[in-house]
């Protein structure tokens, strides 16, 4: 009897009445929906950003149409009537983006390979903070450096700087190319002794030729006079260092995602480490690296302070079109620079054109983000499928 009573008491303690259960459920649901509301706040903000930027951008196209904005390079917004041709400005943005990508992509991918496959863990620990510090330095500090240190240096010693950069950067690769080419050309010869003689001959001939090339181009570069230190090259260099951390960390993730088995298979077939990486790991990680490149490029395209301070802010397409030593102007710098004056005349085309530029930037970043996200998801699927 007594035992039974205790048991019933126990079960009572654990049985929850129907009413209490409903309350619990309601509270749980309410809590979850509050959490959901807060989490979806981000989506709401994204929608708001699109709406509010578009709301102020559309009037511009209503007033002025599309043709002038995209095809003319006459940018005189303060005139009456103003001219709003943004072609040169868009071209400037494109120029610094491509310029910085040309520096940052090879360096970033090489560094990522080095971090994921080559360096031992103990050294990697010290290399990673370097990249993090580079990412942490505020853009305005980079801009200040570009304006106050790099620009005067380029103006005074531009020619010698270009020459040394050419020598230091190109000579190792040229040397390598000479070795590889002379090896490949002599590979077909059967007789070992003749082959070696020819190999050495080719090495000397190509070597002399490349030294001549280095010297000739070097002297041409030495004579170059950079008229303004605030130019597209300056900005491209600085932007590439700002894009590097993104490229390195995202492509390192992509490289790590390629499993050990692929690498070991390649090693087992007798490939060297370089061959394994180039022929096996990189193709497998290529889409992830592409995503990294897209993200890095976006960083350069959306950067404001560096280009505002150090690009020269001159709205024209350089002559010839690939001349990186001329001053240029970008979308971001135009928005930052002109808003202060245009804000006082809210409602005018001068104000709305800046929002049109902002919308353009926003759309480009949105699309490239979506693309890179898709790419990463696809890579993950493919790799897990294998």
């Amino acid at each position, binding site marked *: 009897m007594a035992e039974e009573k205790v048991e019933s008491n126990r079960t009572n303690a654990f049985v929850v009445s129907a009413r209490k259960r409903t309350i619990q459920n309601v509270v749980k649901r309410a*809590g*979850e929906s509050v*959490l959901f509301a*807060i*989490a*979806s*706040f*981000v*989506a709401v903000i*994204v929608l*708001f*950003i699109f709406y*509010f*930027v578009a709301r*102020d951008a559309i009037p511009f196209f209503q007033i002025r149409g599309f043709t002038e904005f995209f095809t003319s390079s006459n940018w005189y917004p303060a005139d009456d009537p103003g001219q709003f041709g943004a072609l040169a400005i868009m071209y400037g943005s494109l120029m610094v983006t491509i310029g910085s990508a040309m520096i940052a992509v090879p*360096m970033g991918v*090489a560094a990522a390979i*080095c971090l994921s496959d*080559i360096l031992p863990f103990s050294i990697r620990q010290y290399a990673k903070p*370097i990249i993090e*510090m*580079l990412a*942490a*330095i*505020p*853009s*305005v*500090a980079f*801009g*200040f*450096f570009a*304006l*106050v240190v790099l620009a005067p240096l380029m103006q005074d010693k531009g020619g010698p700087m270009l020459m040394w950069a050419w020598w230091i950067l190109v000579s*190792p690769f040229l040397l*390598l190319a000479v*070795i*590889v080419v002379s*090896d*490949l050309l002599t590979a077909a010869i059967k007789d070992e002794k003749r082959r070696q003689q020819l190999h050495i001959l080719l090495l000397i001939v190509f070597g002399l030729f490349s030294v001549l090339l280095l010297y000739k181009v070097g002297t041409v570069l030495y004579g170059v006079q950079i008229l303004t230190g605030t130019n597209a090259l300056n900005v491209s260099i600085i932007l590439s*260092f700002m894009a590097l951390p993104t490229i390195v960390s995202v492509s390192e993730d992509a490289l790590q995602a390629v499993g050990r088995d692929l690498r070991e298979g390649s090693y087992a077939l007798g490939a*060297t*480490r370089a*061959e394994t990486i180039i022929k096996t790991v990189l193709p497998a990680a290529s889409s992830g690296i592409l995503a990294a490149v897209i993200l890095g490029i976006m960083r350069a395209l*959306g*950067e*404001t302070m560096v280009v505002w301070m150090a690009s020269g802010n001159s709205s024209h397409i350089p002559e010839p079109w690939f001349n990186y030593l001329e001053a240029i102007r970008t979308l971001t710098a135009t*928005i*930052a620079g002109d*808003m*202060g004056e245009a*804000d006082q005349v*809210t409602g005018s085309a001068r104000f709305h054109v800046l*929002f049109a530029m*902002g919308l353009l*930037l*926003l759309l480009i*970043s949105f699309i*490239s*983000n979506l693309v890179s*996200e898709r790419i990463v998801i696809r890579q993950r699927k493919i790799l897990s499928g294998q």
Partner: protein
Amino acid sequence: MNIGTRKILDRSFTAVGIGSIIVMAIALMIVVVPIVSNGIGAVFFTGTIEHRKLLRDEFKRGNSENLDSEVASSERYRAKVYDMLTGFEAELETMAPEKKTQYKGKYSQVRTALQALLGPLPGDQMPMLTRFKYGQTRWEKAEEKLHDLLYESKWDNSNTEVMSREYFVSRAKSFEGTSLAPLFPYLSHNVEKMLLPEFTVYWGFITDSSVDSHFFGGIWPEIQGTFFLAMGAMLFAFPLGVVAAVYFTEYAKPGFLNSMLRSANSTLAGVPSIVFGMFGLAFFINTLKVSPSKSVIAGALTLAIMILPTIIRAAEEAILAVPKTYREASLSLGSTKWNTIATVILPAALPGILTGGVISLGRAAGETAPIIFTAAVSVGSAIGLADVLSSPTPALSWNIYNLASEHEAAAQIRHVQYGMVLALVSIVLLLNLSAIVLRARISKKLKG
């Protein structure tokens, strides 16, 4: 390819990778070293007597009696200069007319240079702007001004092929034969006695307000503005970000809605910073009207939106890194899901979440573009905590841009600019460094 070439290729491949990391390290050094070495000069420098006068007049600081005796001794040496000036002015009156006009122009150049070096000369009207009330406060600038005084700079345009070159002509020579000629050797011998340079440590650079738009004084209003903006952004973004991360990791079910939210998060992370600024202007100021024009609160809200994705990602990672066993142990003890999250998972993930928070704080402090239209002004005094809802503030990041690119005498106040950049960079790097240390400790702890 023969095996030797393959080996060389393999080695050089390694070298390229290591080389690019070394280049990055060098780039970091090249950027940071001039900022640090020049930035320190804003606090530690060789100050002249003019600097000490300035501190006494503008900030009521320094030993007044000592200074008076110093001023007296410097005035003794300056008096002779002034005598020579009056002597020459008298001589000028006796000169032949064409000679007089020729010397008059040169003499006024000397006077201007002398004013720049020593401050207003006797008989001058007291200037309105503080920057003209004092001579050179820093010794290295005084040396430059002395050079301007001793040598006239001219430009050589004779060769049109190359850029024109600057060259210097001694003023002592052009005044040869007049009573002003001895002034120049006298100045170059006695300038130290007139300006009394001594090593100065000026902590006021960090704690003082600026005098006459950053010609003198410190950067306290900017530091405070940066602090308000960054902390305000954290105040909004941190709780929101952590809660959103809890939802994403614990409650969200895979599906269309969830992937939409994640896409939105990465989209927000990729929006260019200047677009945040435009959005802040169009939404917070023009539409919501949180304040009539630029204000700290509008800037902080804009920055909060900008750092939100970073915080969410960091918090998610930290929560996912909590070992599954913790959660299971808690659930097996009969606690509810919410209880488990609040008492087990969040405390375990807290260091990781804080790391993300600290890094975002650094990012909010360093960003410029979002606050250009929403919060930053170029000149202004430090604002009180009560004013954050209505008034804009100077901030380090914006004022670096402003002083370097838009200030009317940007080249003359390089030391202030470098000092500001150093202050900003050290705030941001210290925050990041502490995050790195924090993370290292966590990974050690998780390893056991």
